[in-house]
């Protein structure tokens, strides 16, 4: 591992988002606040409790996950798409570094950013509802694995995309619906049995469920299953990135 090269890539990526530091922080704070005003206060006041937790507190882990997923995908996809689009990628590809070092730089920076935003959202949520974290270590593990996995997914999208439309397509058409239908705002057992079964095909369910378990010890599916599923997604993303590098797909003709 060429430390200096990876560090340079990582810091340059972090610096890129620092140039827009205000919007980077304001947007998660604002959107988290909006969700709490609408779902937590307005609607949540009509819902007493879900699985023994107040509704406002119940949606906290789901909202953090929502933030983490969308930010990871958009940061990482833009991070690699932009140099491809502007042509500056030539420099990275001609540098004496391996593909995996490139991934550590780009994906590491994207995951770091979304983690920071996730923590900011978590702090913002605290202003609206009191919540507890029963398994803090597991929470951090879920947070980390999710950020890395979905940053890898974003990286793949950024390499696959041939225009800005496609870059927006996957987050808009796949990530957002899956997140909303993934138990962010409800417990799965609030659904009719048929839809409960269908929901289990949604990967986000496992992320939200496991993450919520680390907060309150309640979950739709076993936390071990959640953990196994995240590791499975991570493995799949790594395999896909490895395939991209082996074939030179969209990077090296």
């Amino acid at each position: 591992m060429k430390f200096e090269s990876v560090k340079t890539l990582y810091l340059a990526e972090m610096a890129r988002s620092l140039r827009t530091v205000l919007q980077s922080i304001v947007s998660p704070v604002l959107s988290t606040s909006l969700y709490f005003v609408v779902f937590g206060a307005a609607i949540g006041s009509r819902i007493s409790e879900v699985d023994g937790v107040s509704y406002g507190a119940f949606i906290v882990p789901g909202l953090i996950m929502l933030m983490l997923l969308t930010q990871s995908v958009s940061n990482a996809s833009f991070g690699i798409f932009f140099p491809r689009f502007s042509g500056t990628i030539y420099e990275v590809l001609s540098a004496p570094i391996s593909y995996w070092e490139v991934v550590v730089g780009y994906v590491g920076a994207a995951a770091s950013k979304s983690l920071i935003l996730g923590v900011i959202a978590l702090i913002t949520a605290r202003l609206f509802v009191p919540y507890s974290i029963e398994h803090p270590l597991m929470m951090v593990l879920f947070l980390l694995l999710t950020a890395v996995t979905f940053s890898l997914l974003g990286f793949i999208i950024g390499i696959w995309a041939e225009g800005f439309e496609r870059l927006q397509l996957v987050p808009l058409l796949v990530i957002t619906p899956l997140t909303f239908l993934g138990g962010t705002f409800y417990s799965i057992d609030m659904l009719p049995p048929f839809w409960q079964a269908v929901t289990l095909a949604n990967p986000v369910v496992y992320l939200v469920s496991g993450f919520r378990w680390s907060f309150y010890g309640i979950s739709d599916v076993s936390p071990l299953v959640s953990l196994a599923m995240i590791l499975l997604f991570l493995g799949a993303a790594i395999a896909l990135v490895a395939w991209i590098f082996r074939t030179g797909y969209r990077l090296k003709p």
Partner: protein
Amino acid sequence: MSEDVIRVEALDKTFAGGFEALRDIDLEIRRGEIFALLGPNGAGKTTLISVICGLVNPSRGRVLVDGFDNVHQFREARARIGLVPQELTNDAFIKVWDSVSFSRGLFGKPKDPAHIEKVLRSLSLWEKRHNRMITLSGGMKRRVLIAKALAHEPEILFLDEPTAGVDVALRRDMWEVVRQLRDSGVTIILTTHYIEEAEEMADRIGVIRAGELVLVEDKRALMQKLGRKELTIHLRDPLEAMPERLSSHGLRLSDEGHALVYTYDAEAGEDDGTGIAELLADLEAAGIAVKDLHTRQSSLEEIFVNLVKETA
């Protein structure tokens, strides 16, 4: 240390669509030389550079950079190379200093502000170091790309069309920079379709056409070998027709009989077979008074045009 700093062996590149961009290229670049790769647009100049720099995978053959295979030993090979691409690519919002420093770090070199300063000063970029890329003119952006390529102190510098879209004054400056680099021991490979550039700068010239390297030659040898010389003999009194005596010389009357034009091979000069001595003797014998003599050697441009035409 071998004399060849780059060896390209039996290189083919066929793109996914079936386009054969390079065919059986063998090329050695000597340490410390300026090598100009000439060719019309689409001939494969950029593809060849891209394969050497690791941006494009070869279909067949291999490239050795300072003895290191550029695929299996890419770290060693790429660390020695600086690349200035043809397109003016840049991150619009980054500052010149940051951009050049980034390039150094990316190539794994520890920070060295003194070196970055030296590079920026040599390219007259020092005053612009705090400017964002978006505020620079095209010529300045080109310089920044050169600075980025030099940031990690490469032994070999590739300049892909370095003076495309650059004004004349800046082009002269750029040539000066390239010469200084060569004097400091950097091997330089440049592609161009400005013949003037190759003629002005190169030690050796390679001509590439439709993916094939049709010729690699020392510049002087090339100009001598392929260059035609033209001797124009200005006459005191105009001639109405070619005198019988001179018909064997293959002369051409021009300027309404005021001049005779004689074409000969510059190369033949070495064994004194140009025929000039005989021609002058015959002129004197024919009683034609000569006012002035004028010789002209064809430029590389004419040579190049002829070459590309011949092989087409």
